[in-house]
């Protein structure tokens, strides 16, 4: 028996195809143009081109790691600041529904990914669970790019979206890893008995601890709390210099995002050669699964009361795949999973797809479901 929102989604599917007329296609093309021909995706494209033509561009590692820290701190701090304003104005009345939907989708997306990979793609349990862990979690950089897009289109997202990014980061990885570890336990025992060695103890607990205390959670959640507390207890005047430094519409944040996307492009360019290794199924999965998850995000986000920008960004974060928190956790827990599959799918397929096409598509989906 389907719950009402799902029944509505399934009922409306034929209508979705039918109402997709020429006008909407033109709007979609315009949105794509608005997104593609801006510095952030173009820097990503430049990175890919530089790698493919062996241009020799290298961004110093310590520099882009510092930029990643700055981006995560900014997202957290501004998110905490805006959350405090939202809390002062409406209490928790506007936040609890989106938070609950986020938690629900955080638990659902790894399971749908796992089922599709295992039963349609025919991948092994470990590979399916490993990739599902990446797709169950989220990518903070995709959030930042989607947020920049909606700000450019004059439809800023609800202020508490960074809180949702933090909520979405963990459950997906945890569920996929538990699923993978539990289902592959028998396979492992058989393999160990064949090789005549003892069964290795699972490192699930250690992996989950690493995810919870990893850079993205600690910096984003930590700065979220700092931003929230200081906005409530500090006079507005005192907050100004911090807001100037961290603000997502600011010169520093946008510039840093361009440099980070250039580096992401350089790495994705290298991984493009692995596309042949992963096969057509995973390429299709890396594009279609985010569209399905993105639509669910947009639709349920709208049901939970998010605005047009909010639904777009929410669709983007639900559809995105983690390539920072998930890979080490999967290596620890499911070592038999092939990392080339998950990292290539997350970084060389889904991330570029979302940056170039996904975000404007979620924007149009959000308009279509009636978000304003």
């Amino acid at each position, binding site marked *: 028996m389907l719950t009402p929102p799902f029944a509505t989604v399934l009922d409306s599917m034929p209508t979705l195809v039918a109402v997709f007329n020429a006008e909407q296609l033109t709007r979609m093309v315009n949105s794509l143009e608005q997104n593609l021909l801006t510095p952030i995706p173009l820097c990503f494209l430049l990175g890919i081109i530089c790698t493919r033509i062996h241009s020799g561009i290298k961004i110093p*590692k310590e520099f882009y790691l510092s930029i990643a820290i700055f981006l995560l701190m900014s997202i957290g701090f501004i998110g905490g600041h805006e959350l405090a304003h939202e809390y002062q104005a409406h209490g928790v009345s506007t936040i609890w529904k989106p938070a609950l939907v986020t938690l629900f989708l955080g638990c659902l997306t790894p399971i749908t990914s796992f089922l599709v990979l295992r039963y349609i793609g025919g991948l092994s349990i470990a590979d399916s669970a490993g990739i599902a862990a990446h797709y169950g979690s989220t990518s903070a950089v995709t959030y930042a790019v989607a947020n920049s897009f909606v700000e450019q289109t004059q439809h800023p997202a609800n202020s508490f979206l960074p809180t949702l990014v933090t909520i979405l980061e963990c459950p997906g990885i945890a569920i996929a890893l538990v699923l993978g570890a539990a289902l592959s336990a028998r396979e492992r025992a058989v393999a160990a008995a064949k*090789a005549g*060695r003892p069964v*290795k103890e699972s490192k699930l607990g250690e992996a989950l601890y690493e995810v919870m205390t990893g850079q993205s959670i600690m910096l984003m959640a930590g700065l979220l709390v700092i931003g929230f507390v200081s906005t409530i207890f500090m006079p507005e005047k005192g907050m100004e210099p911090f807001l100037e430094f961290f603000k997502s519409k600011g010169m520093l944040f946008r510039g840093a995002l361009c440099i980070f996307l250039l580096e992401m492009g350089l*790495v994705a360019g290298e991984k493009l050669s692995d596309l042949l290794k992963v096969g057509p199924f995973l390429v299709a999965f890396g594009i279609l699964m985010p569209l399905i998850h993105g639509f669910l995000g947009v639709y349920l986000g709208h049901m939970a009361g998010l605005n047009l920008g909010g639904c777009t960004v929410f669709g983007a974060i639900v559809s995105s795949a983690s390539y*920072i928190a998930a890979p080490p956790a999967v290596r*620890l827990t499911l070592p038999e999973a092939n*990392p080339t599959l998950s*990292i290539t799918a997350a970084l060389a397929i889904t991330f570029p797809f979302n940056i170039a096409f996904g975000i404007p598509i979620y924007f149009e989906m959000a308009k279509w479901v009636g978000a304003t």
Partner: protein
Amino acid sequence: MQLYPLKLVTVVGETVIMEDIAKEGLSLGATGYTMSEVIGQGSRSARNVIITGEARTLKVEFVVPMEVAYKILAHVSTTYFEYYACIAWLSDVQVVRGQAYIAG
């Protein structure tokens, strides 16, 4: 100056397992280790994605007597070789203050 003939065990592999290998080496009888970051490429290239700073390649070295060296090599090869990007080798070394590397 007296030199002691000992063995140098070198293990190179992906970040997620190297701290464990260092600790396990100590529990198998090594008195210490040296760890460093290295650059390279092997048959499993996935670890070369360095966006996170986590997926690096590390090298851990132990100076140990022969029997400890064999224990470490046997442990590393049975525990990690199957699924992880990892290589280990043994070399002869002549060590000053060699008694410091013999446990007990």
